[in-house]
């Protein structure tokens, strides 16, 4: 199977090559604009950042210091905490988006009143600026004057200091992230649900299946592609998340809700340009280490199907 594919790939490659020799469908200079943009905006900065990550850099002068920045970065006391927080944040937001997104999609594809309106309402937060959402929730989550705790106080519950209690800060931000991002997951699931052929449900009805059985045996398994998409999208989003955390807590109180991106940003903010560049190289390698095996795994699944 896989041999055949390789062989096919090689043949296809040869055909393309032959065509190129005869004269490609586009002249070479046609690729130039894209090549320049890629070279200037992506390739050069990548090489430059590899160099600057090995220096102590003030933006005016750079002293070569070998791997000291990387050693320093891995000794950074907040880095381990940042790594753990990044993983927690990615997993929590991704997991909640899967569960809540699927439930909402089930609800919004059933025959309920005002379906179009409700769909719009669920999707609306996706369209709002992240920083705006962050600032709004900072006000809502204020420990004494915020609307959330004032509402809780009315029913006699003393709400926690959502963003300033180190035990809750990261999770509070994660919840806001879910509120903001769950609309996208819902839309993906809705597309998945409506594309399930009705034949399965008819057959199940003839067999006398309950609604619960319908869900477990038909909807859930057939939604697997949608689930994979949601997990990948939200996991990547969660791992590189920065804007919402920065807008809401700036990694605080102290360092308790720092993620890798905010640790790197703080080094940059402090004027440790070489160190923060080294941090970005580390982040690049880290994301590659997670995403490359993941996408290979998913591609293999595609082929087998």
């Amino acid at each position: 199977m896989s041999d055949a594919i390789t062989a096919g790939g090689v043949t296809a490659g040869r055909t393309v090559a032959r065509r190129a020799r005869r004269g490609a469908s586009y002249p070479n200079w046609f690729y130039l604009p894209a090549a320049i943009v890629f070279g200037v905006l992506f390739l050069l900065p990548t090489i430059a950042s590899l160099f600057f990550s090995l220096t102590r850099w003030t933006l005016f002068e750079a002293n070569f210091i070998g791997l000291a920045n990387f050693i320093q970065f891995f000794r950074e006391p907040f880095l381990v905490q940042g790594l753990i927080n990044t993983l927690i944040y990615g997993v929590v937001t991704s997991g909640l988006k899967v569960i809540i997104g699927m439930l909402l999609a089930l609800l919004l594809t059933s025959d309920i009143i005002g379906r179009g309106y409700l769909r719009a309402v669920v999707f609306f937060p996706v369209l709002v600026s992240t920083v705006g959402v962050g600032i709004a929730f900072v006000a809502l989550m204020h420990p004494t004057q915020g609307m959330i705790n004032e509402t809780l106080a009315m029913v006699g519950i003393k709400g926690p200091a959502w963003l300033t209690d180190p035990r809750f800060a990261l999770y509070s931000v994660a919840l806001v992230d879910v509120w903001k991002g769950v609309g996208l997951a819902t839309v993906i699931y809705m597309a998945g649900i409506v594309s399930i052929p009705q034949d399965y449900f008819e057959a199940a009805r003839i067999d006398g299946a309950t609604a619960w059985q319908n869900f477990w045996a038909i909807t859930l398994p057939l939604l697997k592609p949608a689930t994979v998409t949601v997990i990948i999208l939200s996991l990547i989003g969660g791992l590189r998340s920065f804007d919402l955390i920065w807008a809401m807590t700036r990694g605080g109180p102290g360092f308790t809700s720092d993620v890798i991106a905010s640790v790197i940003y703080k080094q940059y903010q402090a004027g440790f340009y070489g160190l923060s560049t080294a941090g970005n190289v580390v982040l690049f390698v880290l994301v590659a280490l997670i995403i490359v095996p993941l996408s290979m795994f998913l591609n293999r699944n595609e082929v087998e199907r």
Partner: protein
Amino acid sequence: MALSMTRRALLAATALLSVGFGPAFAQDTVTLTYLVDDNPTNVATSEALKAAFEAENPGIKIEIETRPGGGEGDNIIKTRLATGEMTDVFRYNAGSLFQALNAPQTMLDLTDEPFQANIIDSFKPVVTATDGRIYGVPEEAAMGGGILYNKKIYAELGLTVPKTWAEFMANNEKIKAAGKTAVIQTFGDTWTSQLFVLGDFFNVQAAVPTFAADYTAGKAKYASTPAAMAGFQKGEDVFKAGFLNEDFGSALFADGVRMVATGEGAHYPMLTFAIGGIAQDYAENLPDVGFFAIPGDDAAKNGLTVWMPAATYISKTTAHPEEAKKFVAFIASTKGCDARSSANGATGPYLIKGCELPADVPAAVADLLPYFQQDGLTAPALEFLSPIKGPALEQITVEVGSGIRSAADAAALYDEDVKKQAQQLGLPGWD
């Protein structure tokens, strides 16, 4: 007809004016951009300086831009300077934060300007870069770092101003027992969390006179110098004793000013420039607010940690260096002090020669001045004695003050942070 006459007259007038500014084709008015931090007290100063300067110089307009304070502001200043995007004139801290800016490459040298004669000599070293040249002029009055307190609460509970840390904690205990907030913290603005550490430096220097020099050379550490670690311990103590306001994690500087002025809280560790904010927004409460230095262990050695004010600098990339110097010269004159006093009232002694304080200063300023009037009762904050200030201090002190990290652990962490900064500055003895 009347209209066109007026216009012609105006044109003639502007043409006459512009003669003074060089070539005949020069613009009628020059606009100077002026970047300041968004602290309301400081913005009020800038507005007053702008108004007074523009009235005197009709050909120059000042355009104020604001930026956040704290680490976020440091970042904006550094990046804009490094990329040549800085405003013509800007306000920024003197001392170690200034040292991190690479002034010789980014700012105009003001050493040989005639207005230097107006400035008190003690200010000049804190805006002098490694090349020995002077780059800034003082924009505010000198400040003390200590504790603003509510005199009404003190009178009500019969308390006296503490001379030792133990007395301070005993006062706090009584205030707490009376059902009031003893210590106000405002970690929503993280920079406000540093006062117990930075404002304790008089006590550090009293115990270890060589600390500043040894610290700069990399020989003295916070974690291994008990007197230096005491500042972190103080932040931990007030948290552990439950003295803080309920919303200490999210309250902002403006909340702290309100609380200490109106008696919602008794003590607010802060720099005395905050008195200007009280004068502006809570003028009727101004007589209720007093000030004392952060107490140490020994009542006989009670003194104040002093802050040099922020300075005004001119960016090297300015297109209007002459006008910018004119503005800076105005700031460094008695007219500049008058504009400041009119905006915020008197907040402390000025560093411009000939600037007198009015006779009726606010109560807190009256508490502040005696420290300056006697020798040996003040010490400059560490950031004016050493070029090194670790950039993560405000996060570390938030952690200590919120009970997340112990004082000992925090001091050790800050030593690491200081090391990074020293290496970035390329200081000897840190590699």
